[in-house]
């Protein structure tokens, strides 16, 4: 049904497509460290070679009842429900920053349990709902 020329073109094109896909996969795999935007507390805990000089990002949830503010700084705990990291930050936090919500902190590790942040970003999750629904959900959870 298909001409000889068309067949050879299909063969050549599918071969180069597969090759190209493998190359892209290899590139993305080798760049994985740079592609991930943040590390979870568990990943930091498990990483033996983590740098204490380089700026890194930690992401997770702000632990409930962990935010404590004083005049100049704000302290809170980032958790991924397995491991935790205490974060200390001087400056303004985004409006959406609150307990139980996602957060990403950029800064440097003091040690594996303590992080000095220079920037705080709020991470939004994939849930969208009106306030009434969220209240109703909370009521039914308690």
């Amino acid at each position, binding site marked *: 049904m298909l001409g000889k020329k068309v067949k050879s073109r299909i063969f050549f094109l599918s071969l180069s497509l597969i090759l190209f896909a493998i190359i892209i996969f290899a590139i993305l795999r080798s760049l994985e460290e740079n592609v991930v*935007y943040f590390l*979870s507390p568990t990943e930091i805990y498990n990483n033996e070679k983590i740098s204490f000089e380089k700026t890194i990002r930690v992401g997770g949830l702000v632990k409930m009842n962990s935010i404590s503010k004083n005049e100049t700084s704000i302290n809170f705990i980032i958790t991924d429900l397995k491991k935790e990291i205490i974060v200390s930050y001087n400056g303004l*936090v985004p409006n959406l920053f609150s307990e139980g919500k996602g957060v990403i902190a950029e800064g440097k590790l003091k040690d594996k349990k303590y992080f000095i942040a220079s920037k705080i970003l709020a991470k*939004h999750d994939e849930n*969208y709902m009106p306030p009434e629904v*969220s209240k109703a959900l909370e009521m039914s959870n308690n």
Partner: protein
Amino acid sequence: MFKNFFPNKILSLTNKTINNLIVLLIAVVAVGLVYSLFVSPPDYIQGDSVRIMYVHVPSSFIALGCFGFIGVASICNLIFKIKLMPLLAKSIAPIGCTFSIISIVTGSLWGKPTWGIWWVWDARLTSMIILLLFYIFYILSWKFISNFEKANKISSVIGIIGSFNLPVIKYSVDWWNTLHQPSSITLTSAPTIHHTMLIPLIIMFFGLVIFSLIIFLMKYKTEVMRFKIEKKKNFK
């Protein structure tokens, strides 16, 4: 239905069809805008900035969909040498390009109040910029290469290579840690958007699809006419 897209049929596409589509477009977008700006509730944490989503998400969908179409058309074009394919792909490229710009701009407008930053280089946002670059390369390859056959080949290769970026954009939020949130609407599970927000999103999606269709038909008609004129010139 496909027959209607053949070069001779598209030329008989009258202004009446386009006008009817424009009326439909205005109706759908008017309903969609009223629903998304006034009827739908604010989000429980984002507040009113959730309304940016009603433009952002459909734009991103269309931007990805258009490039997917260009990718498929480019493959068909290189294998079967159908004259129709480059004209179809060429007409759809500016639409996808525009919507990827809209997606990026609305995204950063949303990012500032929500994340606290306009732009970050996480996997989703970076791959979206790469998509925009591929759109620009694709369009420019048609603009700057005057020989049709040569432009056709080069743009097809750009279209195919750029298509590899599409699954990366789609799954970037699942494969890697990103600041961008994962998809709320998936094929496998129930949407995590409340239905009062999902309905305006779907209406706006259809509105923007109709808009794209109108622009596409007009552009495609122009491209077919231009192609025929060029052909005639070459015979002389």
